[in-house]
């Protein structure tokens, strides 16, 4: 809020009184704000020179100011309609009105990587007359909740940042200003009677010891300035804080004496407070950013940088304006006034500041600009007109500041870190190297590296880096500089070394993929979180000298996020906010920093030998696969064609009961990308099975990677949880070879694949005819009450039928990270006979488990393994 104008007008009035121009100046009276363009000292009007804004009872944003009822309805409706806003009653005002805080973003408080979400807190409406501020706060809510379908910057914020907003903090005072939008007392302010309008439209404080009837003069000056009621500097400023309840800067009876102040603390706890990374108190006017300096130099530097980012971003917007802010050298860390930004800077140790919305009010801060209401064509009869932004300006102010606040949230969400680095062979599409960082705890990540083949000289690759946030900005579909950030500061760099010897690299055609997925031309979570570049190690004198045989290459990679923050050089430790600065945001030397550096954690083998093309998926990759450390669960993979594969995931649920998933994927080189993992439900075992009752739900995704015929790895994401497994081949199918292993031929090879009864769509058999003789079958089904179950067993060919005399069932291990193979219990389930020809067949089963009974199904060959022909 701009305060010194009181003094200016005191002098103005003194001068006028000296000139004996008007007896009205000392008279205590209610005056009206008016548009009247000519200044008059002879009536009870304060001219603005533009239309006096009157609040309108409408929830939707328009070119004007909404009433409190309109704003509150808007907030509640956004909660109801967007799913991206959560309402919290954080306290009550002096007059027992609810103070609402809203958390913007998804409902959880965990990032998509499983880390605690960083939090922001924005407070508006602390000074009642500053109508710009609830509009700006509401604009933030409107902007962010309108971005549900965004795939980049805004979706990242919604998913990963817990953004709390109090849109109308001093609700009693705000209502008082809206009750009297044209009226103020003049001649009553104890310090500046002739020039400082009070109460009505110019009420600043809360409503302690004051009624809501403006004409009752005796109490109209009362109230507490909620921006003076806070520790640690409560009541320490003689010039900016007062013990008098009539003072416009009355600090209250004791720190946080006011219920509104306690509500602010409760709102901070929504973060929770330990996750808070920036606090903004929105005021008007002055178009300046005041901030609180502490004795913590790192916090000081970061806050100054945050404000620089705010100022640069806002000015670069269309119709942007320059917000000035003082250098840290001008601020005293041991001086304060009891404001909320001091509270958050000193006690919560986060960048904390006061955003004074326009207009400018001080030629020192904005040389050459029109000040106060003159900025909008006003006549400046009283510079308090700066609190009365014209209707014509509020849409721009609301929308532009909302965008800039989002930029601040993005910045304080944290510095960027590499989440994965991959190298793809251009010729085959095969993944030859992968370094992926998996979150292990709130402070640690684990680097998981796979390399299927050493990199080779003179071979063309695609190098990709994925990050934990979007790294580039787009307007529409066109990538461009983030507002206020020079394009020169956002440059990707890759250098390669063997020991200390730099290698020569050919890098070109950098791009930021536009499709989500897995692969060299796909982004990971958010548009522009992954970059790809064509990459080659030329065979030349430098590289030949450095690379003898197979040696380790170290990649030194650097990049910056949208706002110019460099990478966390060590992703092994999660960069997070603690005690006023970043923790584990290492620089290039591995030291703690607030500026980051280059990431040199990626190391891969490179060879000067000609090793040929890397392994790619072949029909013989069809097999059962499992992680040797997780006996009891696994996958059955069917390669159906050159580009399509089917997999069944037989596993357990969190209670240790059986569970299974199906997935159809796309083959890329040595990978199968399953963009949808499907869970089927609604089926029951036996004759009561109703295919129409089966519901198939996409619950996640998975990727399989094969480094050879017999090994690989996979990762999955199901129901928001993540996991990965090393893969070892469990079976080899009859008729299929792989690599140097030739195909073994035999009868019934073409039976391999999936079989089902069309009247039982939703359950079925997966059959593998084995190269070692016999067969293995997996039956993915349900129990009589609808729980997913699977049974399996090996069988023999007996008189043309496949006889599985001992089908088994399992239970025990729990899904995911807590899987313990020692918990596995294997139980007999029953028997199964399959009588098959190439296309059709029949199954007969008999179960020893109670409730399952016996029966038969008429089968159709649903899927066939690529290259396995079948002849009756």
């Amino acid at each position, binding site marked *: 809020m701009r305060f010194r104008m009181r003094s200016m007008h005191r002098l103005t009035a003194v001068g006028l009184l000296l000139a004996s121009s008007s007896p009205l100046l000392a008279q205590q009276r209610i005056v009206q704000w008016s548009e009247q363009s000519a200044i008059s000292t002879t009536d009870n009007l304060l001219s603005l020179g533009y239309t006096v804004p009157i609040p309108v009872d409408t929830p939707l944003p328009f*070119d004007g100011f909404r009433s409190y009822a309109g704003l509150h309805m808007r907030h509640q409706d956004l909660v109801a309609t967007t799913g991206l806003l959560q309402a919290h009653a954080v306290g009550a005002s002096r007059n027992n009105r609810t103070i609402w805080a809203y958390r913007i973003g998804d409902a959880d408080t965990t990032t998509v990587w499983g880390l605690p979400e960083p939090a922001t807190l924005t407070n508006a409406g602390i000074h009642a007359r500053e109508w710009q501020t609830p509009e700006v706060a509401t604009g933030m809510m409107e902007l962010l909740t309108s971005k549900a379908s965004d795939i980049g910057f805004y979706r990242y914020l919604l998913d990963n940042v817990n953004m709390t907003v109090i849109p109308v903090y001093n609700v009693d005072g705000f209502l008082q200003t809206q009750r009297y939008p044209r009226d103020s007392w003049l001649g009553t302010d104890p310090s500046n009677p002739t020039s400082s309008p009070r109460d009505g439209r110019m009420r600043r404080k809360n409503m302690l010891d004051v009624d809501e009837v403006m004409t009752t003069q005796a109490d109209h000056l009362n109230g507490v300035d909620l921006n003076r009621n806070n520790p640690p500097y409560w009541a320490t400023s003689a010039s900016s804080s007062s013990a008098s309840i009539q003072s416009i800067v009355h600090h209250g009876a004791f720190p946080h004496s006011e219920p509104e102040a306690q509500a602010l603390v409760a709102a901070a706890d929504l973060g929770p407070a330990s996750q808070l990374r920036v606090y903004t108190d929105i005021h008007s006017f002055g178009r300046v950013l005041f901030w609180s300096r502490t004795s913590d130099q790192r916090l000081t530097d970061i806050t100054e940088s945050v404000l620089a980012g705010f100022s640069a971003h806002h000015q670069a917007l269309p119709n942007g304006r320059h917000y000035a802010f003082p250098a840290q050298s001008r601020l005293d860390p041991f001086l304060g006034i009891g404001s909320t930004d001091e509270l958050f800077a000193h006690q919560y140790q986060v960048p904390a500041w006061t955003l004074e919305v326009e207009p400018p009010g001080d030629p020192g801060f904005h040389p050459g600009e029109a000040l106060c209401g003159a900025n909008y*064509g006003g006549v400046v009869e009283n510079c308090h007109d700066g609190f009365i932004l014209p209707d014509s300006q509020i849409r721009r102010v609301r929308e532009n500041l909302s965008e800039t606040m989002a930029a601040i949230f993005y910045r304080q969400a944290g510095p960027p870190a590499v989440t994965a680095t991959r190298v793809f062979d251009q010729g085959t599409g095969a993944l030859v190297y992968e370094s992926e960082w998996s979150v292990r705890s709130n402070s640690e990540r684990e680097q998981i590296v796979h390399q299927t083949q050493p990199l080779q000289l003179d071979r063309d690759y695609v190098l990709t880096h994925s990050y934990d946030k979007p790294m580039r900005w787009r307007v529409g579909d066109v990538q461009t500089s983030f507002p206020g950030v020079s394009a020169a500061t956002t440059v990707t760099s890759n250098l390669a070394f063997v020991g200390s010897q730099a290698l020569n690299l050919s890098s070109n055609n950098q791009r930021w993929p536009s499709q989500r997925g897995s692969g060299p031309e796909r982004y990971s979570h958010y548009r522009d979180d992954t970059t790809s570049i064509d990459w080659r190690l030329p065979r030349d004198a430098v590289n030949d000298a450095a690379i003898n045989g197979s040696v380790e290459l170290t990649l030194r990679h650097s990049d910056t996020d949208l706002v110019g923050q460099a990478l966390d050089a060590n992703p092994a430790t999660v960069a997070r906010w603690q005690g006023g600065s970043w923790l584990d945001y290492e620089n290039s030397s591995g030291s703690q920093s607030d500026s980051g550096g280059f990431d040199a954690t990626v190391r891969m083998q490179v060879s000067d030998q000609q090793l040929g093309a890397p392994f790619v998926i072949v029909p013989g990759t069809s097999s059962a696969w499992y992680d040797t450390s997780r006996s009891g669960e696994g996958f059955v993979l069917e390669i159906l064609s050159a580009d399509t594969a089917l997999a069944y995931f037989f596993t357990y649920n969190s209670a240790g009961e059986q569970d299974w998933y199906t997935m159809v994927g796309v083959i890329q080189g040595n990978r199968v990308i399953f963009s949808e993992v499907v869970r089927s439900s609604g089926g029951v075992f036996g004759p009561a099975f109703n295919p129409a009752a089966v519901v198939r739900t996409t619950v996640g995704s998975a990727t399989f990677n094969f480094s050879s015929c017999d090994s690989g790895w996979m990762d999955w994401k199901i129901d928001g949880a993540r996991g990965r497994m090393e893969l070892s081949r469990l079976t080899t199918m009859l008729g299929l070879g792989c690599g140097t292993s030739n195909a073994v031929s035999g009868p019934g090879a073409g039976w391999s694949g999936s079989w089902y009864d069309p009247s039982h769509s939703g359950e079925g058999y997966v059959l593998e005819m084995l190269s070692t003789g016999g067969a293995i079958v997996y039956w993915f089904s349900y129990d009589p009450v609808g729980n997913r179950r699977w049974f399996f067993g090996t069988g023999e060919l007996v008189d043309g039928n496949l006889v599985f005399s001992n089908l088994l069932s399992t239970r025990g291990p729990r899904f995911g990270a807590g899987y313990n193979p020692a918990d596995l219990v294997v139980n007999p389930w029953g028997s199964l006979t399959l009588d098959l020809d190439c296309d059709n067949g029949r199954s007969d089963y008999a179960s020893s488990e109670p409730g399952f009974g016996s029966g038969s199904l008429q089968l159709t060959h649903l899927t066939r393994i690529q290259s396995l022909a079948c002849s009756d």
Partner: protein
Amino acid sequence: MRYTRMISLGLLAGSGALTAAGGQVGSDSTVAEPADWAAPNWEAGAALVHAKSAAATALATELGRLQRDDPAALPQRLQSLTDDHTLTWPEREAAVLQFTRSLHELPRDQVSAMAIDLLSRWQPRTLVAHEEAPALGTPLFDIAATAQGLQNRWRREAAAESAKQLLGEDADRYLDGWLATGDPLLRAGWFDALQATTAAQRQGLLEQSLLRLQKAPQLAPLAAQMAIGLRDQAAMARLAFETDPLFLHPLLAALAVELDAAQLRVLLAQLIAQATPDRAALAIAAFSDTLAGDSGFERQLLALLDDPALGSSAALALGQRSSAAAQAELEALAASPAISLRSQRARFALDRIAEQTP
């Protein structure tokens, strides 16, 4: 553009034109450097004592006399104040501020343009502690803003006088001039000029502006102003769909007075069906006082409760004022066991009713 306060370098700040529209200076990110703001150089109380001195009064009087008797000498005298060390800065600036305000009482052609230009760029010297940031100095005497407000007033007056001349000639010339004037301040002057027109002139302006509206939508606010003044219901209703959003609420408020309930309901239905949601939402707000308790209006609102964009407007209008019958329907909707947008909005309306219940 690192700003340094030029305290000792001269009286006036800047040399280019004032940026009345808000200082848009492009996208040079280097402006994001912190400002090296000056520290306070006066304690406010002490400065005020100086401001009340006889010397300050004498200087204000001297400046006023110069303005009256020798305005050409005024700029030089203002500039000479920099070196007038017989007075403190609070004395000098208090006098200059008093003088600047006194200029509001004079016709603009009697004031030296150079003097008012100098005043609008006044570099403040009396810096007191900023109440929100006590370590920073802020001007005690806001001379520049006061002069800038005066300049605005004069520009508006001049625009009004020009517009009056055109109005005396013919409507088309006025409309051409309006279209050529993009500056909101000047357009305010053009609006001012309309106060002196006859009803016949305003009717002519309205008709001409409506005729040209399709090719020149910028005329819509002007047409709306005319239509409101003339209480031309048909024109007002048409303009409810076409006028600039900034002028929409006053127009709708005027319509709420001019039209009867049935007409308002029809217009609202048309706006809901054909206009953007924000336009229809403003109509609901503007009409809800006039139509309070009107059963047809309440039916319209109840039907809107599940409208994604307008449901909140309907809920608010019903929550502000509604009949017992409408409240009963809201209660029935809110009691529905199935949570829907309609039932939620009904609950919002009931919450609003409860808030207003003593």
